């Protein structure tokens, strides 16, 4: 499934995808209290600060939880099941948990805390989502 067209999404969601287009992963952080939040909001949900910056994540993320979806709840996913939905956390963006897919890996290879990294090269168009791969040892 494609990511919603930029014009159709809330303005506070756009910086994430603009950064992805540029090959970066970045998340909203409050300049007043220094806390990250997700999903993007106009006010910091912790201190109501309005000065929200976007901070680039440098290193790989860690696998926090995952599921192998084996049923096409939305018919659009018939040709993709089974697929892996992962929840990824980042040491340099505490408080963020990113939903993504893991590609090029068998579910049996997964375990809690393994390193995963964004697969920018697997995106073919601006409306492709950003999937992840495990970091090979």
């Amino acid at each position, binding site marked *: 499934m494609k990511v919603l067209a930029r014009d159709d999404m809330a303005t506070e969601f756009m910086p994430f995808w603009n950064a992805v287009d540029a090959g970066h992963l970045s998340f909203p952080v409050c300049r007043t209290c220094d806390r990250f939040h997700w999903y993007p909001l106009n006010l910091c949900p912790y201190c109501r600060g309005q000065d929200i910056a976007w901070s680039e994540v440098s290193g790989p993320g860690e696998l926090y939880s995952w599921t192998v*979806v084996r049923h096409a709840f939305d018919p659009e996913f018939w040709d993709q099941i089974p697929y892996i939905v992962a929840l990824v956390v980042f040491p340099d963006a505490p408080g963020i948990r990113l939903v993504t897919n893991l590609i090029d890996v068998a*579910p049996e290879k997964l375990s809690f805390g393994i390193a995963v990294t964004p697969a920018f090269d697997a995106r073919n168009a601006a409306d492709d989502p950003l999937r992840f791969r495990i970091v090979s040892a």
Partner: protein
Amino acid sequence: MKLDVAIVGVAETPPMRRSDKGVRGLVIDSVLAALDDAGIAPDEVDGIVTDSMIMPTTVPHDYVAAQLGINSRFDAAISMGGAGIVCAPLQAALAIQNGLADVVISYFGVDWGTRAAGPYGFHDVYPAKKVFEKPYGFNAQPAYFALWARRYMLEYGLTERQLGSVAVHQRRHALLNGGGQMTTPLSMEDYLSSKLISDPLRVPDCCQITDGAGAFVMTSGRRARDCRKRPVYAKGVGFGSVPITGDAVFTQNPELLVIPGAKAAAGDAFTMAGVGANDIDFAEIYDCFTISCLMQLEDMGLCEKGEAGAFFEAGEAGLGGKMPVNTHGGLLSYSYRLGIEHLVEAVRQLRGEAGAAQVVGAEMGLVSGLATPDFGVLVLGGENTR
């Protein structure tokens, strides 16, 4: 606040996957049957309370009032889905005890068995979901709760068999009830060999999908004594929530493995009722999934954190156990109408009308309603508890 309101009539349409009646017709059927159960005429109703998110867009109050000839003096809505259903008696009590209404009805119905997007469609109201989740096929409740379940297994040592014991016990209750959607037995072996939907959740870990409705009638404790059936009293109602949006709650809640609002709602309900967890004879828990049933029992203080799986596995949640849970089979095996069936079943238990699944000596029951990030808890007492 001390509650003095009783549930004097309950009804539901028969649980089924698909009905050709339409959700409005199903709701009207259930409201009329609940009024008949109470022995109260439709034109005596002067108040309506429902959830504030689903019913107002599908079976609005004005439609029900017009169909039944209700001259409403009080009209209110609270929370959404399951949490709204169990919190409705709070608003009814506020109206009845302050002289704003005499007879208040509440109802809930869904047609998610026949509607194309089923239970998944209403999540489109959440803007972040379309941008950050649906493109990855993270688009349905089984996948959301699967992420919780896997992490929960790591942190609390929950086993596959413990998850399965929830499904197995509740199926047993559904067969005793006899009126639910699931009519075939489920053994642990059946569970362990059943189809995975979204690992680690299997088909029997997920609730039914249902077309149907239920309704209940409330009035003052005083008037309740003159109604057709034994009154059941609303002893305590609690509402809890946390400041997080409906699209972020499944993945971003800082305490991801704690049911939002459950502790606060249970605390308020117990305080209002003047009882503790040990006084609860049976519980009807919003078991949209096996995992969420376990987490609610723990976060409401009915089990220690991490121990609800063992509670089920030891048979303590079955009939004859310490605290029978989901005595009709629950959302897993009876029907999924977001918990209106739980409230109806709790009233039947406290009246002694639960047949083969009757909890002997049931005097105090608890009903929970989950609608993340909202949570509702209702403590009900039998006629000797007024």
